[in-house]
């Protein structure tokens, strides 16, 4: 192992779902203690902490965790980066190691969102007072629903529809079938928020949120946490044979933002930054999409999963519909996608998501995924995207040891 490679030494996630009896520090502590135990290390070994939480970064969630698990005095970086928060926290710990400031670091992500409902879109009250233009558009009244939509299910619905307009082949049923796949996959994942199989008819007949996304086609707001211990190759070489055997190599770690495109301030462009991140990641790892054994991508909505097949170059450009219809992305297909159940079924506690997907892939690479194990998995990719926008891609490889 090269001295400057980075590795996941220990990793853990809580069950996603409803945890009314646990606060965010409880959930984060459970994931962190799990990751430390998994790696055979303690808080005293951590040289840096990346603490991710969209809702609690500004409240110093990292220091709150230290107050419970160990006030060791090391630097804490509290980060929020939309739905890429977890991946960003992971990268913060990695960057500190790359910079030579630490040889081992901790990253965690946590959120409590059970029952949160829509996370964007402003309430509209009766008009009162005197109309006065305000804000960057000089608006005299709320614009959500009057000038398009601000709600995420509607934004991502349009993203999937726009792909359909460019390439054809999309339909309500097609998008629902993507959701059917992920809800089927989660039946094998005991840590998923929802693990009940849903039929296509149930999915299409469920409560419509924003056509064509019905409720089960939307990411599940829930509580959860995930944590990882990352270590330099040089440090890992000094650890035990068992620690080296279970370590998972981080072959690529990339974070991008959305470059300007003509329509990107009208409808967020989640495509270009994902494609850029994937290109960089494949280059860093020295592999191509054909080398991947499994992918955990950001299916915040069923309409989003489709476009990311294309953006991550899992299929030919413009060919995502045919690719899905071929069965490739089911767990017994040529390119299993979201065998955890994805955000639609495993759940999406925002800050935790970008580490939980690394846990999923790492668990397969270690051969420890139980009934949902993708046999012989050696290389996997994780992807998250947060609107605003930020995209995190990691490529992980099984230890050669």
């Amino acid at each position, binding site marked *: 192992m090269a001295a400057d490679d980075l590795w996941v030494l220990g990793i853990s996630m809580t069950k996603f779902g409803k945890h009314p009896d646990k606060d965010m520090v409880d959930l984060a502590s459970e994931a962190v203690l799990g990751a430390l135990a998994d790696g055979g290390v303690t808080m005293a070994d951590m040289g840096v902490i990346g603490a991710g939480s969209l809702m609690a970064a500004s409240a110093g969630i990292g220091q709150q965790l230290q107050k419970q698990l160990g006030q060791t005095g090391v630097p804490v970086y509290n980060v929020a980066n939309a739905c890429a928060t977890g991946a960003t926290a992971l990268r913060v710990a990695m960057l500190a190691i790359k910079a030579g400031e630490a040889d081992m670091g901790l990253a965690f992500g946590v959120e409590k969102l059970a029952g949160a409902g829509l996370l964007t879109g402003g309430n509209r009250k009766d008009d009162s007072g005197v109309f006065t233009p305000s804000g960057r558009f000089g608006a005299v009244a709320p614009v959500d629903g009057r*000038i398009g939509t601000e*709600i995420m299910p509607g934004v991502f619905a349009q993203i999937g529809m726009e792909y359909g307009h460019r390439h054809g082949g999309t339909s309500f049923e097609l998008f629902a079938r993507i959701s059917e796949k992920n809800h089927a996959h989660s039946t094998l994942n005991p840590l998923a928020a929802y693990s009940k199989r849903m039929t296509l008819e149930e999915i299409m007949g469920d409560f419509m949120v924003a056509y064509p996304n019905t409720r089960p086609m939307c990411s599940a707001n829930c509580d959860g946490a995930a944590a990882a211990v990352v270590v330099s190759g040089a440090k890992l070489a000094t650890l035990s044979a068992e620690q080296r055997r279970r370590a998972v190599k981080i072959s690529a770690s990339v974070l991008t933002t959305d470059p300007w495109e003509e329509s990107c301030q009208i*409808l967020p462009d989640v495509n270009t930054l994902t494609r850029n991140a994937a290109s960089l990641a494949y280059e860093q790892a020295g592999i191509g999409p054909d080398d991947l054994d499994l992918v955990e991508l950001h299916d915040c909505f069923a309409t989003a999963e489709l476009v990311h097949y294309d953006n991550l170059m899992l299929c030919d450009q413009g060919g995502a519909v045919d690719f899905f219809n071929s069965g490739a992305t089911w767990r017994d297909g040529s390119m299993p996608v979201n065998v955890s159940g994805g955000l639609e079924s495993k759940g999406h506690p925002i800050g935790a998501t970008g580490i939980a997907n690394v846990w999923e892939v790492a668990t397969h690479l270690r051969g420890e995924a139980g009934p949902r194990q993708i046999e012989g998995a050696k290389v996997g990719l994780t992807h998250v995207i947060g609107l605003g926008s930020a995209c995190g891609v990691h490529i992980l490889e099984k230890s050669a040891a």
Partner: protein
Amino acid sequence: MANQIPLVDYLVLGDLPHLVANECTSCGARFFDRRNACANCGLTGFAKVEIPTDGEVRAFTIVAFAAPGVPTPYVAAMVDCGGTSVRATLINVPADPEHVSLGMQVRLTTQVVGTDDEGTEAIGFGFEPKEG
């Protein structure tokens, strides 16, 4: 006739209501919001340009569940107006997938969206299907 004010400052009212964008005088990138600089090239010169009022629906969704106070269902869309993308709501069309389609030809129209304490009407815009 009541006093009127546009819902947003990039909507120009009058006999031929239309949208205006801030166009970067260096690279041509267009924006509807107040600008500090160009997100594409970083320069700071802008000129007002009129946006065509006819367009094509490039993406849409039918929002059935919204924040409190926002009437549903409504159709949100991205409309391509002669090469400039516009965020808008589709109006004067039933909000169901049988009546709204990708590639649909639409045109800009206006409607009253509210009235303040002094009787001033806020005028919003939307796009409606073009006949035939």
